[in-house]
């Protein structure tokens, strides 16, 4: 489905600058839900918006959607100032919010599509053919006349995304699109998200599922305590936090002398499983040969040697635990390699 592009001088379809929001509390200092967050999302890219619970992700998303008024900062959607012209910005943005909260349960799949497009000023005739085609694409063709209440959770989620896609906007916000879905349906949603980006849409995706993030996002923006912690490509973060550690499975438990010798050569050695396995950091190519030499010298039999694979979940954990700003990410990653 071709996506019309709004005229803009920036490569970012979505740009957020120094966004701030504080919620007042009676008899207590205000809660700074979002405190100076800035990021952009390039056209045709999938950007992940991540953070622990209470980090400010939902508030950020809602400010971008115009559902919460920021206290300060800027929001540009396809070059339109969303704070000054929210209705104009809404022409370029569609969102699927968390949970099954986006549809009318007493309307059918097709009726929901027609209704929401009607609210965007589009006529039923204009929408009819596109709606049916989209239902087929999302594997909901047979369910077009089924009430949303009678659809499965996964089908409801796909329909909610279909409604957002049918709007034909350049920017899509998806808040936890795979939450509560089975593996098969979650895979389908991931595939759809990648296809949407390939079609030129910009997708801002918020998720707690790091496997989804690692799979579909090219870049991630990580927020913690209302502040930006990292804004980096996923591949770069995985490289930065790439483990140089190896797990060695030994043929026999280490003796005290063997362990002492290994620790002299590799001070950060971690002994597990009663001495039957060790985790050792080998930052340089030569270190691997040194490690094997020490084992041979100490007559320690080696059964297997495997590099520890880093998962994005671990990267995320490190970032929110200790990162303070995007510039510190690289330096922090260096330290984090030594933290279990």
């Amino acid at each position: 489905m071709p996506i019309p592009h709004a005229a803009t001088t920036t490569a970012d379809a979505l740009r957020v600058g120094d966004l701030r929001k504080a919620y007042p509390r009676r008899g207590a200092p205000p809660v700074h839900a979002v405190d100076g967050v800035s990021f952009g999302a390039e056209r045709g890219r999938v950007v992940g918006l991540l953070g622990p619970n209470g980090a400010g992700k939902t508030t950020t998303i809602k400010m971008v959607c115009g559902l919460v008024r920021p206290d300060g900062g800027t929001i540009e959607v396809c070059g339109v100032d969303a704070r000054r012209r929210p209705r104009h910005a809404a022409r370029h943005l569609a969102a699927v919010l968390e949970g099954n909260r986006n549809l009318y349960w007493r309307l059918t799949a097709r009726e929901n599509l027609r209704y929401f497009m009607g609210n965007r000023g589009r006529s039923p005739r204009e929408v009819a053919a596109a709606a049916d085609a989209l239902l087929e694409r999302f594997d909901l063709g047979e369910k077009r006349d089924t009430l949303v209440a009678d659809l499965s959770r996964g089908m409801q989620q796909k329909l909610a995304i279909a409604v957002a896609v049918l709007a034909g906007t350049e920017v899509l916000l998806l808040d936890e699109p795979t939450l509560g879905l089975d593996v098969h349906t979650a895979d389908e949603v991931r595939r759809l998200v990648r296809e949407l980006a390939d079609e030129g849409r910009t997708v801002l995706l918020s998720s707690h599922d790091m496997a989804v993030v690692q799979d579909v996002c090219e870049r991630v923006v990580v927020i913690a305590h209302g502040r930006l912690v990292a804004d980096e490509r996923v591949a770069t973060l995985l490289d930065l936090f790439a483990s140089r550690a190896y797990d060695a499975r030994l043929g026999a438990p280490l003796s005290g002398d063997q362990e002492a010798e290994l620790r002299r050569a590799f001070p950060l050695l971690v002994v597990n499983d009663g001495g039957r396995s060790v985790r050792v950091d080998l930052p340089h190519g030569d270190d691997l040969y040194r490690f094997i030499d020490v084992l041979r010298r100490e007559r320690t039999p080696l059964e297997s040697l495997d590099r520890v694979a880093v998962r994005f979940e671990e990267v995320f954990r490190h970032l929110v635990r200790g990162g303070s700003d995007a510039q510190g990410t690289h330096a922090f990653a260096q330290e984090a390699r030594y933290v279990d």
Partner: protein
Amino acid sequence: MWTNVLRANVAKVVIELRRYLPNTISMFVTFYVIFLAMLLGVTVVGDPAAMDQNVRFLLVGNAVWFLLLGGINSIGWEVTTEATRGTLEQLHMSPVAARWILLARLVGNLATNLAIVGLMLLASMATTRTWLAVDLPFLAAVLVPMLLAVAGLAFAVAGLAVVYKQVQAMLQISQFVFLAMAFVPLATAPWLELAPAVKGIDMLRASLVDGAGFAATGPLDWLSLLLNGAAYFALGILAYAAAERRAIARGLLGRY
């Protein structure tokens, strides 16, 4: 654009009326039963010499009360229900402002309410074998500005619902206020002319009960009716807009 918004929302109201048919029928039955109870009261307690007039008064008052209830509370209930379902936020993400979507929804609700009130009035007249004078052009001319005032009240109620969400108790209590609006004649309380829709209700009553039409209605009556409708509509929209701004500033839209 607005035509498509109106079409989509009227279609939604009609579809949901059919899908929630048992609810619609029970609403009709409830008000018919209330009418029968009031009729019993009028028959037993009322002055036999004025029975015919009293029954006509009751027929009109009951129909107007139902119309007011359905109209004024409609989008208040809609906002509360949408907030519970989670779709209120979707309405606010449309390129068309939510207040105009709700206005389209209100038009649909008022139209269906009018149809139901018409049916109920027919059933009531058949029950009492008392037939009101129906001057459709006159009724339409009065209803339009009167319903503008009703719409204004509806938006004020919806504004409260957007901010406070749980307005069910207020909506239930308000039906007694509407009862007073529907039944108290202007002659006994002329100051009520300043209240929303009461002038229109009085003119409707005069037409349906006494057969008063265009000839019996002076320019000052029309001026009062039109100004009342326009003023309350404008005030209601402004109240809703202010409430919506407050809800968005405090992040209350999605909260229930």
